[in-house]
């Protein structure tokens, strides 16, 4: 089985969110970048397939050279090969088109992405890859088992979960549950050393149409200070008469 894991290079959750150039660009100054957490759950599940079922695991990212440390980290965790599509990740559709092209060229059986990236929260790239390549698709995937080309997957729904039967080729959007938090791996020294000599291929983007473009950012008005109360009668009164939520 050939697996492609799509890795988004995102600001760490604790980053301060600021914008530059007249509020048109995200300010990366002082920001630490990480593997998107939802992608990391999927990457870890891919490692399980590598170890238990002999799968080959490639990772891919759409981004400039500054995203390579994130790909190297994925190699250090255990991926066999990395691909970087040398273009800024301008919008979800653009990224999906690039990744669908990589997916078609590499003839992958299983493509794993994340439920959403924690920066733009679009949640659209994996599904778009599926539609563009004609693969099956499971969103918000919390378990996946593969036997031959048959797949049993679990998906989170509002208020529960659902078991789905499908087949390869398949795209899944993973999240916590596809592996547990405790299964996540911190690269060890051996992995980091090996990652240096693993292939990291750089590919130029294909031409595609642009469907959306961000023209500016803004930040919400700062919130007023918390109102502290010392008894529940006052709290109920405020929730009823002031906030009008009960």
């Amino acid at each position, binding site marked *: 089985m050939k697996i492609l894991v799509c890795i988004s290079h995102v600001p760490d959750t604790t980053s301060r969110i600021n914008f530059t150039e007249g509020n048109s660009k995200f300010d990366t100054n002082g920001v630490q970048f990480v593997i998107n957490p*939802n992608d990391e759950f999927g990457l870890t599940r891919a490692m399980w397939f590598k170890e238990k079922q002999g799968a080959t695991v490639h990772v891919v990212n759409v981004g400039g050279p500054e995203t390579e440390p994130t790909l190297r980290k994925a190699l250090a965790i255990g991926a066999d090969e990395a691909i970087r599509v040398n273009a800024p990740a301008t919008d979800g559709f653009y990224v999906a088109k690039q990744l669908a092209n990589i997916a078609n060229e590499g003839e992958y059986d299983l493509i794993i992405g994340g439920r959403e990236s924690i920066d733009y929260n679009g949640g659209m790239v994996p599904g778009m890859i599926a539609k563009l390549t004609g693969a099956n698709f499971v969103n918000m995937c919390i378990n996946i088992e593969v036997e031959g080309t048959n797949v049993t997957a679990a998906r989170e729904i509002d208020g529960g979960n659902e078991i789905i039967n499908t087949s390869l080729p398949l795209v899944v959007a993973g999240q916590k549950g596809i592996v547990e938090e405790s299964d996540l791996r911190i690269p060890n020294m051996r992995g980091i050393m090996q990652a240096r000599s693993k292939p990291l291929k750089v590919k130029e983007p294909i031409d595609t149409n642009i469907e959306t473009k961000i023209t500016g950012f803004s930040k919400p008005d700062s919130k007023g200070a918390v109102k502290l109360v010392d008894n529940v009668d006052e709290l109920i009164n405020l929730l009823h008469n002031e906030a009008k939520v009960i």
Partner: protein
Amino acid sequence: MSVLVYTESEEGRFKKIAFEAVSYAKGIADMLGTSVTAISINGNNTDQLGKYGASKVLQVSNDQLQSFNASAYADTIAQAAKREASPVVIISSSANSKYLAPLLAVNMEAGFVPNVTELPTSTSPFKISSTVFSNKAFATTEITTETKLIGLAKNAFGVLENDTSLTTEAFSPSLSENDFNTKVASIEKAKDKVTIADADIVVSAGRGMKGPENWGMIEELAEVLGAATACSKPVSDLGWRPHGEHVGQTGKPVSSNLYIAIGISGAIQHLAGVNSSKVKVVINNDPEAPFFKAADYGIVGDAFEFVPLLIEKLKEFKTNNA
């Protein structure tokens, strides 16, 4: 030409988010000088949709579509949009809508903007604002495609009444075998329990509760309020509560009217998942807990003292206001 809105139902009953989506679609239709067409898949009592501004319902009644199927549902909506020559298609942010959205966008060759909280700032060029960075910022996006797909954030626009006379037409999509390559084998869902996705109020608790045996009061408080129960990440990692209750960046998002956090310190990953809730209340015995900075109302105090009191007083309040 009309604005198309996908109105979600469960076991035939329309969800509140369907009415919110119709209200929003009406707002866009007014800006474009057109009307609203709703597409309903196996929903009953479609008349209700007129109350929020729909003037036509395309009613799909199809046994093959009894359980949700992202590919078949996306194809159905795309065919309806084509028939109506819809310049804009509106969907919600439920788990099912998020599943079908990317398939629908590619199918319609539509630029897609999810997590939208307001009407477009202009329709020509088409510019619209949405939340990004886990609600810590807004982005304005220009959509340049002929058809636009909008994913409406939950509980942001509100349900607005707008009585409109409504006609209903049957609609039969043409579906292919490929639409059914993914099949639902089974569904596990708690019955008679408010889900976090649908709840107006969410009662959430963290490690401050000291152990799973103390959750009785959290469930009771939720019951009094008609709320869903939720928990912080450590609590679900420790196995005190099921994973499905974990809210936060890697758990479920919450956009309720009221979010009550009990014994939750308010780690940034937790806040990222809950900060689109309208009103946040925190009860915590540590006055330095970061959640106090994010909350609207707070009690610095022991949950084991204040939660039972709150239950008692809320019961009185409910009786008096019934």
